[in-house]
């Protein structure tokens, strides 16, 4: 009885199953594209809206944040003036926006650039912080990584485990002690303090160590036999071979410091002239409820622009760097 029931169901169900499976397989690309396009839309739109709204006067930003197509006339004046040039009030939103289109203004950018020269100063500071740390880390991290990977000395393993352990220390624990220490030696709110505290990092050392272990050591050994000084061998022969890892390290360091907020808040947050762009942006936002979105959005665009340019030029290295560190991690 039982077998009689089973036998007829097998031939009828099998084709249906494989048909639906084939159908699912045919549909997969459509679903896949739909998901990717949807997520890409979610990831890109905020930036597009930020850029578009950074070119609007503040009444239009709050009234019509969705208008994103710039149309001439460009360079609209956000103040309404009478014949004598006296300011009567802000340009009403409806005068700047029409449906999805708007007449762009540079008002937000003009304001942040004219506001006591602060923004150029912050941008300059950010560049110095990011470049300085990048150079220091390329130098110190690669030397330390090389030492751990290639040179035999008592305590090598022990130092490696200490550096591995340092990765686990959350930055927030270090905030207050670092502040106290820098204050005691008078390096708070200085470039020197910033460089000193962040000049080497455990992640970079481990990245370089991994890399040096992955390349053969014969060339340096040959140089060593020739009696070349170890320091010369390192800079002339070893470092040039390490270019891929150094590029990844440079990108991580530069990006990390360009965007750094928490460390900067503690180390240089007490003196406005030492701010980086992130601290400056927080300053532009103000602490009140009335946020001047034209300033904040223009500042956001200015802060992001240099990193975006670097990203689009060195895109390959960004992605390779992440996957490189990820695989090794």
């Amino acid at each position, binding site marked *: 009885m039982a077998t009689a029931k089973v036998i007829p169901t097998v031939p009828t169900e099998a084709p249906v199953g494989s048909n639906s*499976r084939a159908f699912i397989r045919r549909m*997969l*690309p459509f679903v*896949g594209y739909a*998901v*990717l396009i949807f997520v*890409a839309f*979610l*990831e890109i739109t905020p*930036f597009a*809206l*930020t850029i578009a709204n950074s070119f609007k006067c503040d009444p239009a930003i*709050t*009234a019509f*944040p969705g208008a994103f197509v710039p149309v001439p006339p460009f360079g609209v004046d956000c103040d309404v003036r009478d014949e004598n040039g006296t300011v009567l009030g802000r340009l009403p939103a409806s005068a700047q926006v029409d449906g999805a289109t708007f007449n762009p203004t540079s008002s937000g950018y003009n304001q942040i650039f004219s506001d006591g020269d602060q923004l150029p100063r912050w941008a300059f500071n950010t560049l110095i912080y990011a470049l300085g740390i990048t150079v220091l880390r390329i130098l*110190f991290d690669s030397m*330390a990584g*090389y*030492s751990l990977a290639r*040179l035999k*000395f*008592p305590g090598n393993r022990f130092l490696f485990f*200490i550096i591995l352990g*340092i990765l*686990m220390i*959350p*930055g*927030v*624990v*270090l905030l*207050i*002690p*670092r502040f106290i*220490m820098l204050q005691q030696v008078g390096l708070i709110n200085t470039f020197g303090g910033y460089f*000193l505290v962040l*000049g*080497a*990092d*455990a992640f970079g050392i481990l990245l370089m160590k991994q890399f040096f272990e992955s390349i053969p050591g014969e060339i340096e050994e040959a140089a060593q036999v020739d009696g070349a000084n*170890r320091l010369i061998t390192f800079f002339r022969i070893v470092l040039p071979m390490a270019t891929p890892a150094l590029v990844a390290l440079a990108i991580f360091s530069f*990006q990390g410091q360009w*965007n*750094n*907020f*928490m460390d900067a*808040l503690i180390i240089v947050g007490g003196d406005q002239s030492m701010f980086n762009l*992130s601290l400056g942006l*927080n300053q532009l936002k103000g602490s009140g*409820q009335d946020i001047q979105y034209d300033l*904040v*959005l223009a*500042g956001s665009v200015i802060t*992001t622009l240099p*990193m*975006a340019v670097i990203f689009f030029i060195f895109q390959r290295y*960004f992605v390779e760097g*992440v*996957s490189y560190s*990820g*695989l090794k991690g």
Partner: protein
Amino acid sequence: MAANTASARTVTASSQRGYAKTQEALSGYGFILPAFAILFLFMIVPLIVAGYFSLTDWNGVRPLNVANAYEFIGLENYQRLLVDGRRVDDFYNALKNTVYYVIGVVPTQTALALVLAVIVNQKWLKGRGFFRTAFYFPSITSSIVVSMIFLFLFSNTGPVNGALRAIFPSYESISWLSDNNGLIHNFLGAFGVTRASVPGLVGTEVFNISLWEWISGPSVAMFTIMMLAIWTTIGTMMVVYLAALQNIPSQVYEAAAVDGATQWQVFRSITMPLLRPTTFFVVTLGLIGTFQVFDQIFILNTDATKQTVISVAYLVYDLAFGALSDPQMGRATAAAITLFVIIFVATLLQRRFIGGDRAVDE
């Protein structure tokens, strides 16, 4: 004669080798010295200093070189933090918010990143580079810029509310970043379950916070910040997964195809196990990052939402530097040390569950 020369040769050779060894050891110390000095001074010493000050009543204002700048009070800071009563700015409140944040963000971003990576890795996909770039781009922007963008997007008059109103005409604007109501509280409220109908949950306290508040879930404001975190991070995590996927040899899949495995079976029993070290890495990164969430909270918390938004890391800052009239360095460092222990334990726990090491050994 012959024996003499031979032994002389070995002596010079071994002394030369000894000299080379010493040379190498000295270079080893020399090469690591600059980096290690920095790490020692600004990573290890601060950790010890933090532990030290967490046992004192120093307020951060009294100069340290003055006598009686601070006193040892033993574990009193920890006692006040972890055992005694609760205020809005108290530790358990911040911990509750942080735990919601971690639980909401880490699994979501890991799962989404994996799904995206699997799709982007498909052979039939065109425009792989475009999608990878689009997903990765937010990761290069600073957390402060991203916070500013979300502040604008989710403001009462912002594009998100505008878009929702356009799609659903009956939509009533949500004040995303200033709404303290819990998500689950709102959900239950829709079914008529409110504070008043569950007195037992309101009355019972776990870690000095009523059970009802725990169950209420993250507030709408916190949920918005969680979306921000996921939005920013999935790109990085996706790139990590994608690299791991591309490292799986194609023979593995060919063998599975010969055996007649379905795509789902292949994913379940081949891809997922092979990705285990990557998952371990992504989850570890996620845990460490989310437990320390600071920047976004710093920008997006307001007096109104402080209670449901502040994280432990922000509480540390707030106790030490925020309340200018009443700074409490001792308590702040105690909170920081406690966070350190929590992150440490969380990492160990997930090592047990996901087992990164074991997976690597396999």
